[in-house]
């Protein structure tokens, strides 16, 4: 009895601070979760199933959603096509100015998106460095899907390069060396060993790039207000008809974007396998 009391007394001073510490962590962490959830819940409550069905039947809303899905997917593919080689170079080589290139890749994360839109307009606008010559061969970025993809790519590229770089850095360099010593050229080893081993990272990159692209508003609204992507459409409805009128469309966008994101993320994390990864 005396022993138990001593033991309890011995434990007591350490138990209280630990409970307090855990409680503080939960409170602060919970606040952040609530902060994220609350507006989305309130938005969902602002509409009814009937209004959602009506919004889903509007052709302009459907076109905007289709455009967003399509251009975000195109952007993800383009980002992979250009980002995987860059990530490979950054992961496997050492060259002068490497730090500088790495900083440039991350730069879009820090630039305000309205500024991105204005900067892109200078380059891709009708009189821009790239926009002017492109205009000659019939490609216009201003107010077209080209412009939408350009805006999405600028803001989402760092996610692709970052994800693939992490995956490449995790591959044991001896595995690539083993391939080389077995007679594989650099290109063969890249195709048959490096790429399959980095597949998970590339999938993650695709999902993050897609998610970042589909949610992009600031750059696109300046470079390509029309044709309207889903975020621009929601903003447009809000400006024209007010808060309540934009709620149903916003919830619809939320459902579509979130559901595609969840599906892709499940694919990337390997919980669902689209095809046997070889």
């Amino acid at each position, binding site marked *: 009895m005396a022993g138990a009391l001593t033991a309890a007394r011995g434990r007591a001073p350490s138990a209280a601070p630990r409970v307090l510490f855990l409680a503080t962590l939960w409170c602060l962490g919970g606040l952040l979760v609530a902060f994220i959830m609350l507006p989305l819940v309130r938005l969902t409550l602002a509409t009814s199933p009937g209004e959602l069905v009506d919004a889903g039947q509007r052709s302009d809303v459907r076109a905007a959603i289709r455009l967003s899905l399509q251009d975000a997917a195109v952007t993800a593919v383009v980002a992979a096509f250009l980002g995987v080689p860059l990530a490979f170079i950054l992961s496997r080589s050492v060259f002068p100015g490497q730090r500088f290139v790495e900083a440039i890749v991350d730069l879009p994360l820090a630039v305000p998106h309205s500024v991105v839109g204005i900067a892109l307009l200078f380059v891709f606008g009708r009189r821009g460095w790239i926009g002017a010559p492109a205009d000659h061969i019939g490609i216009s970025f201003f107010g077209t899907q080209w412009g939408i993809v350009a805006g999405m790519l600028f803001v989402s590229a760092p996610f692709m390069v970052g994800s693939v770089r992490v995956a490449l850095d995790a591959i*044991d360099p*001896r*595995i690539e*060396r*083993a*391939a*080389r*010593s*077995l*007679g*594989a*050229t650099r290109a*063969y*080893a890249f195709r*048959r*060993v490096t790429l*399959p*081993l980095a597949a998970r990272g590339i999938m993650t990159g695709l999902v993050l790039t897609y998610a970042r692209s589909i949610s992009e508003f600031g750059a696109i609204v300046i470079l390509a207000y029309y044709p309207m992507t889903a975020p621009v459409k929601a903003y447009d409805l809000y400006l024209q008809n007010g808060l309540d009128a934009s709620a149903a469309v916003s919830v619809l966008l939320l459902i579509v974007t979130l559901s595609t994101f969840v599906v892709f993320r499940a694919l990337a994390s390997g919980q669902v396998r689209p095809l046997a*990864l*070889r």
Partner: protein
Amino acid sequence: MSQPAHGNGLEIEGLTARVGEFTLRHAALSVRPGRTLALVGPSGAGKTVLLEMIAGFRAPDAGRIRLDGIDLAGKPPEDREIGFVFQDYALFPHLTVLENVRFGLRARGIADGGAARGALSQLGIEHLAQRRPGTLSGGERQRVAVARVLAASPRLLLLDEPLSAVDAPTRDDLREELRTVLSGSGVPAIYVTHDQAEALAIADDLAVLIGGALRQSGPAMDVFTKPVDATVARFLGMEMMADAGRAGSDRARVGGAVLVLGGPLPDTAFVLCYRPEDVELAPPGGPCAVNAFDLRVTRITPAGPCDRLTMDGVLRLTAIMLRRTRIALRLEVDSAVRATVPPSALHAIAE
């Protein structure tokens, strides 16, 4: 399985490389066809750097590497026909065992023709063909790694501590298997290890690399029993006698004792060394014999199935003996003992 025609094997001359603070200096060695050379040395000695240069993953600053008479300078790794077995095997985790073993043939655009299956059966792992490396034991992975390089019919095999990632019981079996495979393949091989017992068990020749310098190479037993300098002797587990002086053309004085050697002393300064397993122990007294001293056991250190005994008296000696032999001889700390160093076991190495 077809093997390439073997020419002169591997010849290395004056190989020099600087890697950060480390420098490999003027390395020279050769491996004849059909022979296995064990490259031993403490960690950080440059063993892996040397292998990487031979395989083409690292360019030397100077020197020459020739394989079957062909200079390898400027040849990329894929054109060298050198099989590399890595320390933790570096199997392709996304491919099955069979696809791993077939990789070298596919990469070179060669039709399989049964070579991959042949290599699997040579290593006794045909039943693993459809498994992924992640599901294999350490020993199985090691066999896959060896089968993978053999299937590609290399001109030279490089094995970088291939048994270090395998647990002890499996290691002995694998060592025997590897020896059989290596001697049966006819391909010259360099086997890197820091374990001298493993080196002796597997190799025909032995090369000792310490601090970036190849100190000695030659037939394994020669190097093991006749090290050229004190550093090599120490690394190969020999015991040194401190402050040995000259006491005749074939006699040396150590402490209060005079020791007879198996041959003449060198003209220069020298150190005396012996292998502790060569020291014979018997109860004290007994008939007078050459190099026999009555000493007292001052320390007993267990070393696997053996014990290491330190003995002091007119001189200090160290002996290694089976534990059951020590117990049978009733040798404990403070026991009196007669220790004999046969003259043939004493080596004088020029300093």
